[in-house]
């Protein structure tokens, strides 16, 4: 702990995570209330942090002519077998198009047709040259007067005696500073959770980082919420992505961007003529493999040279390693079809349902705390534009609340601060014990083998999940043995602790839903049938700090936002 100074900051709204949702929230708040102080706390640098570090080539949620918020809701209801928060999806979809217009106004280039309309890529997507989307959003935030605290890892919410979230503790990784950040409202936009399971393509220790979702989004925001007693929803609705094998590059670029057929080893288009949902397409691919007709491919061999070039350019804007892969093999996309594979499971509120339980104003169950984007649950298919809208709604709600209530912030007492600092820096003080990588390997082993990892064909069953529960409980105790040699190690130590917390909650959810609703995201081998008469409910959880256990709750679907 030597050399770590303590610094105190105060702001109106603290935004945890400078990704898509966080920056949109920050800009909106400053525009709506130019005298407000808005502070973004970001573990890296908002210019390239989060999911969109590499960029995007399509904005996947947009209402083209003929589509409305209602038609979008119908689409999402079908995609998620009816378990969707209608209020959240409707309020989000209403803002998609404005969000896209804002990106264009900030300088993100959208190709347009002769009438000036955005180019369509699939039913709900528009084409974009979005390689620099994050730097452009960051510039817009700077122009709006947002303040930043970068390379600062959020570790714990500050909760006052009345149970209100009044800020957070954070670690300045580069300047060895322990921050006490007091805020009249806090918005959590830390993204989804990767790194719970080991990578689905077993490579080697050399290239651990390969994955679709960024490993740097370790679920800290969710873990902080759980530790403070916030309610989470649908952690059993994991997200498994169908991706290009080995590079884990998104397939939408090929499937919707260029429209190539998806075929089995015999060249048969096994999706043709079937109107399938995203999860059903994934399941059909696994079924082809199961029936001995794998591997499955995206058949890029019939592309024209111009289309192949277009495909490479689209990947450079979002997943450049795909182009490097073709280059290293000295191949063009036309030489060989692209093999596809499922990813490891993630928890991503923007694609599936898992995250904070929020009301339609994006307020969580903890007073003073809001959540948006991949960190909040109940409204899938958010993508870039939906995450922006959620950030905007959260910001406006937070502003409204802090102007209506005359809040007096009380700085936590000296003892409380010293204790929090001690907890946050503890791994630096220990000399022998475990390093983050060791605990992470153990976590992977538990989840892969007992909580439906790729090695288990993603399938779940009570007997195995109970072992996962028991082992995770032990692992939570091992966290007190973590050591760290420097700030980078310390950041990794916090990330593994947070992953273990989120994984523990997820296993409770997986145990609780005794049916099979979204195979293979959630497939119970011991309850193989979908049961609408019993399970048309949200499954929620809260962590009980006092006895290290989880309280499970059911929330009805029709309770629209019902908090």
């Amino acid at each position: 702990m030597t050399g770590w100074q303590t610094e105190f900051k105060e702001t109106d709204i603290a935004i945890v995570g400078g990704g898509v949702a966080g920056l949109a929230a920050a800009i909106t708040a400053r525009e709506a209330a130019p005298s407000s102080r808005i502070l973004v706390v970001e573990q890296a640098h908002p210019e390239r942090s989060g999911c969109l570090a590499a960029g995007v080539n399509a904005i996947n949620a947009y209402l083209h002519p003929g589509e409305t918020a209602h038609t979008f809701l119908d689409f999402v209801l079908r995609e998620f077998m009816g378990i969707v928060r209608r209020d959240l999806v409707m309020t989000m979809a209403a803002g998609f198009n404005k969000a896209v217009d804002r990106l264009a106004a900030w300088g993100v280039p959208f190709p347009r047709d002769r009438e000036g309309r955005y180019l369509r890529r699939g039913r709900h997507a528009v084409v974009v040259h979005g390689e620099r989307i994050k730097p452009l959003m960051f510039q817009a935030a700077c122009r709006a007067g947002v303040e930043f605290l970068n390379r600062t890892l959020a570790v714990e919410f500050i909760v006052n005696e009345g149970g209100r979230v009044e800020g957070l503790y954070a670690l300045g990784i580069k300047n060895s500073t322990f921050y006490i950040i007091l805020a009249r409202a806090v918005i959590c936009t830390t993204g989804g959770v990767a790194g719970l399971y080991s990578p689905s393509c077993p490579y080697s220790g050399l290239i651990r980082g390969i994955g679709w979702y960024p490993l740097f989004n370790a679920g800290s925001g969710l873990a902080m919420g759980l530790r403070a007693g916030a309610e989470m929803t649908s952690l059993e609705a994991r997200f498994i992505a169908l991706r290009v094998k080995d590079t884990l590059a998104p397939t939408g670029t090929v499937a919707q961007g260029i429209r190539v057929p998806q075929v089995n080893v015999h060249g048969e288009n096994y999706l043709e003529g079937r109107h399938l949902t995203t999860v059903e397409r994934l399941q059909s691919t696994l079924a082809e493999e199961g029936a001995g007709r794998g591997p499955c491919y995206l058949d890029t061999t019939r592309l024209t040279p111009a289309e192949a070039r277009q495909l490479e350019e689209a990947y450079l804007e979002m997943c450049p390693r795909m182009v490097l892969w073709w280059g290293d093999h000295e191949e063009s996309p036309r030489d060989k079809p692209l093999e596809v594979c499922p990813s490891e499971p993630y928890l991503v509120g923007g694609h599936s349902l898992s995250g904070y339980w929020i009301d339609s104003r994006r307020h969580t169950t903890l007073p003073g705390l809001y959540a948006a984007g991949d960190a909040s649950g109940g409204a899938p298919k958010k993508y870039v534009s939906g995450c922006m809208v959620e950030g905007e709604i959260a910001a406006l709600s937070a502003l409204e609340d802090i102007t209506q209530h005359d809040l007096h912030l009380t700085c936590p007492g000296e003892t409380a601060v010293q204790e929090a600092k001690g907890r946050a820096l503890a791994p630096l003080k220990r000399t022998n014990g475990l390093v983050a990588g060791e605990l992470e390997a153990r976590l992977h082993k538990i989840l892969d083998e007992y909580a439906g990892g790729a090695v288990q064909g993603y399938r779940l069953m009570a007997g195995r999940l109970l072992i996962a529960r028991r082992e995770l409980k032990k692992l939570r105790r091992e966290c007190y043995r973590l050591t760290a040699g420097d700030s980078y190690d310390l950041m990794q130590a916090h990330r593994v602790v947070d992953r273990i917390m989120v994984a523990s909650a997820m296993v409770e959810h997986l145990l609780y839903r005794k049916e099979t609703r979204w195979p293979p995201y959630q497939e119970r081998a011991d309850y193989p049938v979908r049961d609408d008469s019993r399970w048309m409910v949200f499954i929620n959880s809260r962590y009980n700090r006092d006895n290290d256990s989880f309280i499970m709750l059911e929330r009805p679907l029709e309770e629209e936002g019902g908090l």
Partner: protein
Amino acid sequence: MTVAIDIEKCTGCSGAREAQCERICPGGLLVREGVKVQLRGGGACWDCAACVKSCPHQALYLILPWPLGGRGARLYARASATETEWILRLPSGREERYVIPARINQKKPVPEI
């Protein structure tokens, strides 16, 4: 996969409080040690290429390690005000170039925070 550092070309962004690549990496994986930069985190690199685009001396490039290829292709990038240029050097030494629009209007450069 991972990023490679051309130690000859890297100046360590001498003089700057923080190196460009160190500032930009979303995982905090690039750390300046002495006058050169090093990659931390045992292969946690996500290949986002943010550092590759940020380096003023093209000292960084993406490579495909041996379990997936390892034939030596390199992906370089150079960012101008409105475009990003990519240079793919194939194992044979041949180069492919791609120039892609990246922003529509030229406003003042990103301020350093």
